[in-house]
């Protein structure tokens, strides 16, 4: 008997021992959405030490130029709009960059798939303007450019917009830990600085 059959047999025996099963109705009377409050989204991002820039689309490059020091090396996913990147930085598009090159970069610029206002969360799904997961992980600074139309109020709305089969990374502020005396400290292994550029 395989372990699979053994295990499934045990579970069926365990359930049979408990008597007949009654189908369970899951009550879903919690909120499935809500009014979108962009100011709240910004406040929640700031509360978790993300830095927020609300600018128009044609000001993205200037905003990023102000965030990153001149001459900084920036890795970007291959599908990122080139107009977002200022001429003051050295851009390395991800055409199979090795991990060492990515880790050595000063920053990464990505787009996002969805954001959640209530929790101050941005979600990346590996689309061409967001790239492989490693891109937004190794550089110490992450600049994430987001459109207002991508922001939803609640977690249920975000899940409904996402494709489960894509690799998803939910990001709420910079890397942090509560492991020392349960006090929150920003900056462990992931990017220690998170900038969110919010477009109309």
């Amino acid at each position, binding site marked *: 008997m395989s372990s699979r059959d053994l295990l499934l047999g045990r579970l069926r025996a365990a359930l049979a*021992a408990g008597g007949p099963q009654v189908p369970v109705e899951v009550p879903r009377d919690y909120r499935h959405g809500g009014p979108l409050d962009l100011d709240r989204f910004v406040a929640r991002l700031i509360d978790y030490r993300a830095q927020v820039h609300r600018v128009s689309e044609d000001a993205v490059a200037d905003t990023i130029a102000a965030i990153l020091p001149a001459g900084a090396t920036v890795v970007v996913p291959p599908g990122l709009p080139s107009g977002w990147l200022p001429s003051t930085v050295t851009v390395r598009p991800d055409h199979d960059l090795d991990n060492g090159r990515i880790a050595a970069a000063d920053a990464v610029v990505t787009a996002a798939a969805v954001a959640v206002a209530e929790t101050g969360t941005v979600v990346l799904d590996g689309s061409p303007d967001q790239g492989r997961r490693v891109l937004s*992980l190794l550089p110490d600074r992450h600049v994430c450019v987001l459109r207002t139309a991508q922001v939803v109020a609640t977690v249920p709305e975000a899940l409904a917009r996402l494709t489960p089969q894509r690799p998803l990374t939910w990001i709420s502020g910079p890397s942090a830990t509560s492991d020392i005396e349960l006090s929150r400290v920003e900056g462990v292994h992931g990017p220690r600085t998170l900038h969110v550029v919010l477009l109309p």
Partner: protein
Amino acid sequence: MTHTFLGMPSTAPPGVGHLRGTEPFPSAARRSLADPQLRRNLGHATATIRARSAGMIAEVPDWQQLREAGRAIKTDVMARLPELLEQLEARVTEAGAVVHWAADATEANRIVTDLVRATGSERVIKVKSMVTQEIGLNEALVAAGIAPVETDLAELIVQLGDDRPSHILVPAIHRNRAEIREIFLRAMPGVDPGLTDEPAALAAAARNYLRQTFLTTKVAVSGANFAVAQTGTLAVVESEGNGRMCLTLPETLITVMGIEKVVPTWQDLEVFLQLLPRASTGERMNPYTSMWTGVTPGDGPQAFHLVLLDNGRSAVLADPTGRQALHCIRCSACLNVCPVYERTGGHAYGSVYPGPIGAVLSPQLTGVADNASLPYASSLCGACYDACPVKINIPELLVQLRDQAPHPRAEAAAMAAAAYTMDHPRLYEAAQRAVRLSRLAGRRGCALPPPLDGWTASRDLPDPPAQTFRQWWAGR
């Protein structure tokens, strides 16, 4: 493999893993209570997390509806566990991964060890995972000549300090910043001797220490917070980014999960992703949540193995009341509100699952006889039930397990004698007079004599009243 009848629900085998302590709770707790530093550290940490979590929960207007939904989803999962696991296996396999089934800790350890050996790697990086602690995976890997590196900050503190975890969420909760600095200075290779005890400096030291290890290790081992049967999606919630490193950088990823972690649908995540962070770390959302489905070409590990573990869970499932202990999402809210845990800490419980949930889960996984003192590690105050985001009725389970635990013969004899006496009014009155005599004899505040002294080991015997109720009633 177990030696019980094939196909029958089976408890976790002894001799492997960390579900059984080496001594009963009362004697271990007595030692913890005598450590004032430990009590200060625990008091500070649990008070901090309680306040933070309460504030975050108060923000959510539909918290009770979410709890009820979470409870119902988990009840449904347990009722349909075999079919959901088969569905999960099918979806994960379609997505390019390999699914393994492990009847117990020994088999899971062997599967993981063989998988690591096959890669030729002599080192694995690990995401914090309760289930790999439960099965003693690190010991098995070391015995096979493979070095496991814990990458969660608290697990790293525990590993470098040659210590044991004492909390589900914050395994080093029993250490304060000064003690952590000392451990790093003593045991972390290449550490800056000028390291301060500022939490940010300690976190930065861990970042520097682990960076090269992340970039050069070919295999990672993780647990899972959720696995979606409908889509084959696995989810890990974390804070530091060590989880993302382990789930993204290596060539091979091995995920070990207890079979109870499966949820039916993608939509179900909307409930648990709201409940878990607020109940656990007291955040609106934890900094990072990773979700992946099988293998994504060109992104992340190109070999993914999922190990589904029983190790006593089938035995828990067999008890229609007890099975709610399998609903646990490992948030640790019940630990943080428990007056017993706050004073004794996690080591006193022996098992890797401490606190109220540990007191009902560990004895069921091992069989009550092997953790007989744990159901008594509670005052039955009920704070854990109120705090649980999936509404596990821990007090109900504690009482049921106390009933199932082996009782000392003296206690059974005393209870039988009391029942007989109460059934016979003359005897009862005589007994009451005898109690009053003991008061006249000056035996107040004393412990009971053997074999009944167990009752008074941690309680004072109340002073007998000057008059019984019957005497007072007769004299009105």
